[in-house]
């Protein structure tokens, strides 16, 4: 008999929920990556997308493949987390950074910045350009971290497809850029290489926000479009970690549709610019 004909939709949903729990538990025990508290509706979709790409029929089959083949696990991590990013993503944010945050940073002799969830590095390089134009890059250290080593490898090269430069340039101009964007890279074949002088104060390193600890104290923390991966409980935990890593009156920057509202840190920060999701630690 076809098992499908007797299994109700509710039962199938329940079986699937069990399979997802087992898969994520297994991955945590085998590889140490902890996806168990990621936002459940999204992670479910991503797991299925991965299953389709790999031509696996069930989530149990994904579990088997991922547990036995580390290369499969690498691909799984990529498909679960990687997301496109661009230079000067949400140009209005970078404009606000220039006008509202830079004046505060300028008052410090040494400035530490954490770009958490930096992906392929576009955000960190954009920051570097802003800091350079504002004349404080030499006083800055940008720690750009991500849990995923593949994207970090790309980030470190500072090489981007030349075809992206049109978009990057448009964003740069809208973000209040002061020069010609083409001064910041050298074109070679189909690629653009970011200038060495922009790269020298950026430290790319692996850091998992779920399983690793606070490692320094920062005047500015950017965590944009990363908290949306997490469920409410995990978001709270990660925000606590960022809070621990925040210097007094440090500034926190979130993604365009993320907010501190309804989180337990809401009262520990004041809004510097609510539309641009810029917050300042109260003490």
């Amino acid at each position, binding site marked *: 008999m076809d098992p499908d004909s007797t299994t109700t939709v*509710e039962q199938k949903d329940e079986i699937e929920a069990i399979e997802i729990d087992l898969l994520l538990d297994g991955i945590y025990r085998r590889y140490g990556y902890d996806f168990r508290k990621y936002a459940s509706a999204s992670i479910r979709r991503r797991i299925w997308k991965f299953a389709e790409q790999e031509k696996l029929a069930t989530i149990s089959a994904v579990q088997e493949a991922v547990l036995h083949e580390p290369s499969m696990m690498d691909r799984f991590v990529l498909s679960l987390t990687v997301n496109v990013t661009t230079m000067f993503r949400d140009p209005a944010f970078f404009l606000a950074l220039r006008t509202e945050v830079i004046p505060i940073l300028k008052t410090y002799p040494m400035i530490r910045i954490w770009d958490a969830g930096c992906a392929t590095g576009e955000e960190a390089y954009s920051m570097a350009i802003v800091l350079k134009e504002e004349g404080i890059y030499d006083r800055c250290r940008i720690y750009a971290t991500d849990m995923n080593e593949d994207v970090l490898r790309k980030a470190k090269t500072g090489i981007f497809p030349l075809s992206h430069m049109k978009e990057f340039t448009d964003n740069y101009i809208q973000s209040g850029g002061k020069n010609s964007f083409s001064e910041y890279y050298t074109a070679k074949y189909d690629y653009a290489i970011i200038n060495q002088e922009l790269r020298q104060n950026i430290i790319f390193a692996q850091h998992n926000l779920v399983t690793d600890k606070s490692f320094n104290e920062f005047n500015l923390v950017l965590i944009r479009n990363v908290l949306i991966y997490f469920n409410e409980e995990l978001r709270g935990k990660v925000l606590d970690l960022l809070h621990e890593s925040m210097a007094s009156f440090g500034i926190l920057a979130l993604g365009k549709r993320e907010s501190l509202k309804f989180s337990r840190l809401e009262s520990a920060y004041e809004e510097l610019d609510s539309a641009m999701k810029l917050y300042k630690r109260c003490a």
Partner: protein
Amino acid sequence: MSYKLIIIGCSLGGLSATKTLLAGISDDCMVPIILIQHREQKAEVSMDNVLTNMMQRYTKRQIEEAEDKTPLRLNHIYLAPADYHLLIERECVALSADEPVTYARPSIDVAFDSAARTYGSGVIGVILTGASRDGADGAASIEKRGGLIIVQDPLAAESNTLPKAALAATKNPKIMQLEEIGPYISNIVREGGASRASRATS
């Protein structure tokens, strides 16, 4: 049946349809309402807050563009922001920047399907005018899990591709004129609330 969530899907041309629908839902209809409307990248009405401000005039409920992890409040209306998928978790809205699904982000299918999986038979899904079939599979997902699907009469819809596709994808949809939908929903939500109350007192 006691309903927990109303979710509405339409494409950009659905602005006037949405206004009519929202105006027809009575103020005492105490469930969160989610609105998934396709937006055009560069269109004026896709800009932040333009759409919510336009629609706010037609309803007393607070209407807001959803942010990630916005809790679902009973008498609020949440509009999916441009360029993100909106998914429903137990207590809140979750956004995702994953790739567009059938060219759409927000995708009606993604939102409807997640609503169905979270709230099962507690969902009322409403399909209005739409120029693509995004939303039809989501409607089927809601129906399969015991929720109710209402489809605007394709003959009267500005664009009938979505209503037709939704009718083809579901078994027991209610076909209605735009003006009827709000009052009908208000009624069944109220009845659900009443039967819950009577159960509680008996």
